[in-house]
């Protein structure tokens, strides 16, 4: 059930719940995902991966693979014509390992053959001799400087502190704890897949790929292929979810290399097990926080230490760490801060972007702390938060002033006011399926306690630290039909729904055609950081306005009126006097206007050595309330309801926002109670959906929501990004509710790590940390 009215639609303009253009195809199974690409004569590619977390490669002998009938190509690092390494920020990750492997799953060679089974045999035939090395698996050893360097660039990916205000200030009330966050996987359903088609003559290549940022991929691919970017054309293939895991290069370079060597199209698909090795994950983190507050519960200082395990390669670790430490305070005022943050290299799986990007980890810590403060001050969890909320104009711990709308108090109050579930534990009929344990029938109603928890979050929008992550869009109006072109990766967030809504709104047309999403237009930046509605929405809006201006000039000239007096009214153009009224279709008959625009957000800057600087563009806010039923004796939970009020600026498509909110909460729930990649001795133990558990229908509760609409003056459409906030504070809200339930059962819950495991709830000792 949703408190949001997704309404009836007349025209699919902004504000209407326009339906996804690909929705029916996806539901019916006819949508072409990247893994559906192929065709006759397309070869299959596959990747040989390291079985060791850390080893020296003594020898690679690919000759046995060549002898297998059907094998067309076998490539290693020796076959990389351009740059040998890639990376989003630091180019520290080899296309193929040649001297050292640094994580289980690191690519060493790739083959192309006539059939996946031939590929499997070819990979098995390749001989790699290793000298196994001691892996570096303890991030604290890296911080302490006692671990040997496992990469020429060293093991510290970033060390950044924040010093703000007076570090000597103390509070009447002090609470502290150390929190652990496990490694979450994006677990998109559409596995990595690509199809590379070489140009005749080998002068270039076209790659069909499910990705988040076509132009960034292109740059990195071209560098490794030793080509100019223009020689590499990328086309967005059907994306089955991304959540950050498609920001880094995975199979792009390998597929292109094979295709170019062979002069034949090659496709590559990862399996689920391989996917767990082939993309970056959410950083596991250890976060210590100490909050100082007045007796009345006003925060006066926060101290914190963050250690993020970046795994073997840099990816976006430095930016993730920045996000984490700059969100130490959460959506609360905090005049003084001492924060120390580390992102380090280990021989674990590489980590990088995932929905929430560092803020998820920080939020679990600061929200757990706020609950501790509430308890120490004798306040309820909503009250402690409301007393500390940030407002527009407040200075953050980076010294940056909050410029944008900041309705966090409304988010908290509206969340608290949303209706509670009207059913008791197990529902009115005590259905065992609805109790913790679900289908396992482990509990009876009498074994179960219900708890309530609150949490809130602040999330930066767009890229930070001086990065100009602009977006480009092209709008063409001809004979009443608008064609939009952009390179914005549609990863499920709904930009393909939104862009036509913008065009209809601005131009008064109904028919909007979307051109293919490819590198045939300027960059759109990444579909991440909750940024595309703001950034690509801004670009589409600007391009449409540019076309509208030309249309108005054209109409003005024809009808002898002032262009400035014209405006769009529905599907018509009218002038101020009301004398002129004609349809956009008629007005644009026989003419064509074609405009391309870039949208840039206001510039940001780097942090200085004390972590001071205007490093972020803007922020969104959210609050969550969770109601959870807990079986304290078995340590099992059933989330009964999540309520949320989210700062969205302006709702451009209610149905789309509902989708983001519910999906984000599902992902937050997953981190709260089940989703974790388990690595033991540097080896992943649960690289399958049998053991990497995602929430099912029986785990995901109804969501009640309210949209806090305070249009954002800084945003081109008044709308803030809505993709990440749902994931961020839903996790701590659920954990807080579990703690609350346990307290009612007379237990003393700590629950300072996520995901919360049954052993954490019942208090059986944890397994030793690995």
């Amino acid at each position, binding site marked *: 059930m949703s408190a949001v009215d997704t309404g009836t639609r007349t025209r699919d303009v902004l504000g209407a719940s326009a339906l996804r253009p690909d929705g029916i195809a996806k539901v019916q199974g006819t949508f072409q995902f990247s893994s559906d690409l192929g065709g006759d004569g397309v070869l299959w590619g596959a990747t040989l991966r390291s079985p060791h977390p850390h080893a020296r490669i003594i020898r690679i002998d690919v000759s046995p693979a060549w002898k297998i009938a059907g094998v067309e190509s076998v490539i290693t690092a020796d076959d990389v014509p351009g740059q040998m390494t890639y990376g989003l920020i630091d180019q520290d990750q080899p296309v193929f390992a040649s001297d050292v492997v640094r994580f289980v799953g690191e690519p060493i060679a790739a083959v192309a053959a006539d*059939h996946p*089974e031939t590929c*499997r045999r070819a990979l098995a035939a390749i001989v790699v001799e290793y000298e196994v090395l001691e892996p570096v698996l303890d991030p604290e050893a890296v911080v302490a400087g006692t671990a040997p360097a496992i990469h020429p660039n060293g093991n510290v990916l970033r060390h950044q502190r924040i010093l703000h205000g007076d570090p000597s200030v103390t509070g009447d009330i002090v609470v502290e704890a150390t929190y652990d966050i496990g490694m979450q996987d994006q677990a998109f359903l559409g596995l990595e897949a690509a199809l590379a088609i070489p140009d005749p003559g080998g002068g270039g290549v076209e790659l069909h790929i499910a990705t988040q940022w076509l132009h960034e991929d292109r740059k990195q691919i071209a560098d490794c292929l030793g080509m100019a970017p223009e020689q590499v054309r990328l086309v967005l293939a059907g994306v089955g979810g991304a959540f950050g895991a498609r920001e880094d290069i995975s199979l792009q370079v390998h597929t292109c290399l094979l295709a170019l060597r062979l002069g034949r199209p090659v496709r590559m698909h990862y*399996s689920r*097990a391989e996917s767990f090795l082939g993309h970056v994950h959410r950083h596991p983190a250890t976060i210590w926080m100490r909050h100082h507050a007045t007796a009345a519960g006003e925060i006066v200082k926060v101290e914190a230490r963050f250690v993020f395990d970046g795994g073997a390669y840099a990816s976006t670790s430095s930016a993730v760490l920045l996000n984490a430490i700059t969100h130490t305070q959460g959506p609360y005022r905090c005049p003084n801060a001492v924060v120390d943050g580390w992102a380090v290299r280990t021989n674990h799986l590489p980590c990088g972007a995932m929905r929430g990007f560092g803020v998820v980890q920080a939020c679990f810590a600061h929200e757990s702390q706020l609950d501790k403060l509430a308890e120490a001050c004798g306040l309820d969890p909503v009250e402690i938060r409301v007393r500390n909320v940030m407002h527009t104009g407040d200075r953050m711990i980076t010294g940056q002033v909050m410029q944008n709308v900041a309705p966090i108090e409304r988010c908290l109050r509206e969340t608290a006011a949303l209706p509670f579930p009207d059913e008791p534990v197990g529902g009115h009929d005590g259905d065992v*399926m609805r109790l*913790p*344990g*679900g*289908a*396992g*029938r*482990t*509990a*009876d109603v*009498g*074994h179960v306690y219900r708890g309530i928890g609150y949490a809130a979050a602040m999330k930066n929008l767009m890229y930070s630290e001086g990065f100009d992550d602009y977006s480009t869009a092209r709008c063409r109006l001809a004979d009443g039909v608008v064609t939009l072109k952009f390179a914005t990766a549609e990863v499920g967030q709904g930009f393909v729904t939104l862009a036509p809504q913008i065009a209809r709104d601005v131009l008064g047309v109904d028919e909007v055609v979307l051109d293919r999403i490819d590198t045939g237009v300027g960059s759109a930046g990444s579909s991440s950081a909750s940024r595309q509605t703001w950034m690509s929405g801004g670009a589409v809006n600007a391009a449409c306005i540019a076309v509208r201006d030309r249309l108005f000039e054209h109409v003005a000239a024809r009808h002898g009126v002032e262009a400035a007096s014209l405006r769009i009214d529905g599907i018509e153009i009218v002038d101020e006097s009301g004398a002129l009224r004609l349809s956009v279709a008629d007005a644009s008959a026989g003419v064509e206007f074609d405009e391309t625009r870039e949208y840039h957000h206001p510039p940001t800057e780097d942090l200085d050595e004390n972590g001071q600087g205007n490093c972020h563009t803007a922020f969104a806010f959210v609050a969550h309330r969770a109601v959870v039923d807990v079986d304290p*004796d*078995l*340590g*099992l939970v*059933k989330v009964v309801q999540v309520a949320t009020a989210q700062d969205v600026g302006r709702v451009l498509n209610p149905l789309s926002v509902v989708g983001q909110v519910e999906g984000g909460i599902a992902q937050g729930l997953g981190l709260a*109670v*089940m989703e974790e990649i*388990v690595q*033991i001795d540097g080896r992943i*133990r*649960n690289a*399958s959906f*049998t*053991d990497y*558990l995602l*929430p*099912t*229908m*029986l*785990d995901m509760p109804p969501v009640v929501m309210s949209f806090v609409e305070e249009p954002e003056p800084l945003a081109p459409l008044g709308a803030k990004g809505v993709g990440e906030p749902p994931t961020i504070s839903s996790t701590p809200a659920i954990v807080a509710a579990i703690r609350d339930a346990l307290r009612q059962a007379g237990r003393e819950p700590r629950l300072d790590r996520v995901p919360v*495991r*049954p*052993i954490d709830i*019942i208090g*059986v*000792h944890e*397994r030793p940390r690995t």
Partner: protein
Amino acid sequence: MTVLVPTSLDEAIAGLAANGGATLLAGGTDLMVEVNEGHRHFPWPDDGATIIALHRVPELATWTYDVPAATVVLGAGVTWATIEQPPLRDLVPALAEAARTVGSPQIRNAGTVGGNLATCSPAGDGLPVLAALDADVTLLSAGGRRTMPVRDFMLGVKRTALQPGELIESITVPVLQGWQGYSKVGVRNAMVIATASACVATDVPSRSIRIALGSVAPTVVRCPVAEQFAVERVDWDALTVDAGDAVEFGRLAAAASRPIDDHRSSAEYRRHAVAVMAQRLLQRAFPGGER
């Protein structure tokens, strides 16, 4: 690769006799996972492997209720979807509860009780119930038919008494008179592998109480000490049990388990969960006592 699709039991047996190393395929929900994960390879393109698909064999897909013998005879190919519904649900409720915990509706539509038994995973949900109910399994080959207790059929982790050339024809499950039920702990509310499970079955006329545990040893564990204790402590006239006795029953059941630490759970948690489940199951069976 050759795929045989027999349409009678005789045809299936003949195919099996002619192809000693043939792989049997029922619902494929275990077998195909092994293939997908690379644990089982079928030589390709054609090295003479034979698959015998059993889903068209009507004898395997049916079940009968033998009223005089008070048994249900399940063809090996009976699916979980059939078992979780009436009338089977009313005859063997614990097996139906176990069936309901298997995977998702799609998996239960395809997966079979015979496949579950043949796979003989420590976490197989049908197995504790079959062990608690003292079910027998009937194996068939060109050489003939043999029947043995399910408990003897299960030899170890994914090891059974099935010989080459044999298939599971049926499973004979006694219909008891008394409460029976199944509980399974996993870290998700549905579609999850058991980290520990337990079945308690009672037969009031014979004053018998059985408990079998899953996922806490290489194969299913019966707990004779706990069973004996419960038989002695239950008030058979009032059909109640003391709360303290239920706790002790759980403790004795846990003592019979031999769990391991793995990436799914710790041995300690598994032992604890077994104790809690056993206690609660006994209280469901004899609900009159105080909690």
